[in-house]
């Protein structure tokens, strides 16, 4: 159970020496309880207290990395059930499964495809995060060779070793120990052997059981063997299992401080049909998975999943912003209409969508107003005649246009006079108030 500020205070030296950076021990205790600082900031606290607090102040869902290096993926550390309460912290890793009997060519091709899967979307680099190598051959040497091949062809990608045989796992883990592979295949029966391998090689481990009850017992057992970086596999197979198990595990960890389920979750979304697989994977991503395993990585599929993950993990408190720029739609010429709006992403999506719908070649200036919508930005003094004029002048757009007409959002029609004064030689036209009137407006401009 998490301790309250007062409970923590009782364990502190109570000297108010300020070495922690807080004026009093009580203030420090309160901050500790709220989760803003580490106990190590107090140099005088006893080891015993540290241990008590360490246990109690550990995050409700343990956090550690999948893989190593720059492309390692952080997992866990989630604090809420709903994204509108607070940002979901560590985006779900997307892993593709490959069987060790697929043949060297297929294995190489898959590993290379993963290594080259990175794309850029709205300024973020997105890629397939991990490769799961599944042992279906039952042949240790074959499995190890497949693991080595994947490791070689995808040198930075996180690895998941999916095999229930401890002997086979041991050899394969040793072959790629520097990559800290996630060991997947631990059940009640082989827990001790698997935990020993994980411990010896510093690897995280997946605990697999049928249902959350058995899983809780298994994670406690694995922890007892000295491994704490555990990933939960509740045996969820259907989308319903995924939603129910993941919801229950997260609730138990967050609301009941139930430590045995305070770990990241792995789900398999593997289905025969590629589109259905994308759909089921999207269920796992929305509903609390830290790793989702799929069977193929067609570009259209990963694009959809990357995008959904990005949407779900966006910070709801920070308005999503679009980069300040003059966006060109449908290959505009020097004569094409020129409009301006603010960089609130929703404003941008709606306005640019309507401009694209109109099929009228146009330019849309998106001005940085700290992610505020047109009216709010105007009210906050960020979308004013002076600032718009300055932005237009500095943008260099005058060189690209044969005209000097700027279309202003109808909601800030009030700015048109002042803007005409400040933007010498320009005509300011007031556009529609509502975005859905844009197509008609633009068509009338060019007809």
């Amino acid at each position: 159970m998490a301790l309250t500020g007062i409970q923590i205070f009782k364990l502190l030296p109570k000297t108010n020496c300020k070495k922690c950076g807080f004026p009093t021990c009580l203030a420090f205790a309160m901050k500790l309880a709220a989760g803003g600082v580490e106990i190590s900031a107090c140099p005088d606290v006893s080891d015993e207290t540290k241990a008590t607090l360490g246990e109690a102040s550990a995050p409700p869902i343990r956090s550690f990395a999948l893989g190593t290096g720059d492309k390692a993926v952080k997992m866990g550390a989630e604090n809420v059930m709903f994204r509108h309460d607070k940002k979901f912290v560590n985006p779900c890793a997307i892993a593709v499964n490959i069987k060790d009997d697929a043949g060297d060519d297929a294995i190489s091709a898959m590993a290379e495809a993963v290594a080259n899967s990175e794309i850029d979307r709205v300024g973020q680099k997105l890629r397939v995060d991990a490769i799961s190598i599944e042992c279906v051959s039952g042949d240790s040497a074959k499995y190890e060779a497949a693991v080595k091949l994947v490791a070689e062809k995808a040198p930075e990608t996180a690895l998941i070793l999916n095999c229930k045989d401890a002997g086979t796992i041991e050899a394969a883990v040793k072959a790629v120990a520097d990559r800290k592979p996630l060991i997947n295949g631990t059940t009640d029966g082989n827990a001790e052997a698997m935990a020993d391998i994980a411990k010896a090689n510093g690897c995280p481990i997946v605990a697999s059981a049928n249902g959350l009850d058995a899983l809780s017992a298994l994670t406690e057992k694995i922890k007892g063997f000295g491994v704490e970086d555990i990933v939960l596999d509740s045996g969820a197979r259907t989308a319903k299992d995924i939603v129910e198990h993941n919801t229950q595990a997260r609730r138990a960890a967050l609301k009941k401080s139930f430590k045995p389920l305070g770990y990241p979750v792995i789900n398999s979304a593997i289905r025969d049909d590629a589109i259905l697989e994308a759909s089921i994977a999207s269920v796992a991503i929305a509903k609390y998975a830290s790793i989702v395993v799929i069977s193929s990585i067609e570009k259209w599929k990963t694009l959809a999943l990357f995008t959904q993950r990005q949407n779900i993990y966006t910070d709801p408190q920070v308005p999503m912003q679009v980069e300040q720029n003059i966006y060109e739609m449908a290959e505009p010429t020097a004569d094409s209409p020129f409009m301006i709006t603010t960089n609130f992403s929703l404003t941008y999506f709606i306005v640019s969508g309507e401009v694209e719908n109109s099929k009228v070649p146009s330019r849309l200036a998106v001005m940085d107003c700290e992610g505020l919508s047109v009216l709010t930005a105007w009210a906050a003094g960020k979308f004013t005649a002076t600032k718009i004029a300055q932005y237009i002048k500095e943008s260099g757009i005058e060189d690209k246009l044969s005209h000097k007409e700027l279309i202003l959002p109808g909601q800030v029609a009030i700015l048109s006079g002042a803007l005409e004064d400040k933007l010498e030689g320009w005509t300011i036209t007031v556009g529609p108030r509502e975005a859905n009137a844009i197509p008609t407006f633009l068509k009338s401009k060019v007809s």
Partner: protein
Amino acid sequence: MSFVVPKETFSGKVLAVDFGKDDKKITIGGENTLPFLSFEGECPNKPAIAYEIQDCPPDDWPETVLNVYKDVSSDTVTWAKYCQDELKADAIALRLISTHPDRDDRSAEDTAQTVKDVLAAINVPLIILGSNHIEKDANVLVAAAEASSGNNCIIGKAQEGNYKTIVAAALAHNHKLIAMSELDINLAKQLNILITQMGFDKTKLITDPMCAALGYGLEYTYSVMERIRLAGLAQNDQTMQPPILGDVGMYVWKIKETIAPEADVPDWGSIEERGIAWETVTATSMILAGTNLLIMRHPKAVENVKKTIDELI
């Protein structure tokens, strides 16, 4: 420490709303827990999916979805029958897009005839949608409500700027009604209050908090829907308990990801599957957030969302 299933029970309940007639009638809503959490509550009705058709050829739909209907979409009735008989649609959503002043500006009277013709040809439940033009919809939907009187349709969308006449028409002809607001829980609540203050029964309302496509504001829709659900269930806010609509198809099939050919965006892969996956993932995300009724376009997307729903219940 042994595991105890952490159940939550809510005092509120989503209202159950039916539409259509006889054995084809569909009921949505009725759950007293968050989507698909039947371990702690009742989820008596699964989300329903309606196929979207239009009252004029869908020239503005991208090829992936246009091609599916190329032999039937020149005639609205043929298109409706194709969805019912060949695609086994559970429900059909007829969008009267040709009435928009920027399209054909078709009159409300003309449209009323189309509604009658479609109703005569099908027996699955019908949703009748305007063109989303505030003033024109006020006329078109009144005529459509009259033309479909007695068929227990869903009509919409009533918005802040035009709800009065549309509510009156739904009331007079005993239809269900979609109340739409723009991605704001308070606006959604406000509109529901205004509509019920006119004497419209809240058990006949459906809330459309405005959909958004994957990658184009999906997270706003997702969170507004989750918040509406929590308000209705946890706080037992009576004005936030109508079922939720996700008008997915129209938002998905106009964005670059469903339109741009692979040659232009090689990193995005096959345009066909990309479009279908986009509609599928958008719709699946919506039902997880609380959507009870989806309006969709591509049969393969519908099929995969249905399979997902079957796995979820």
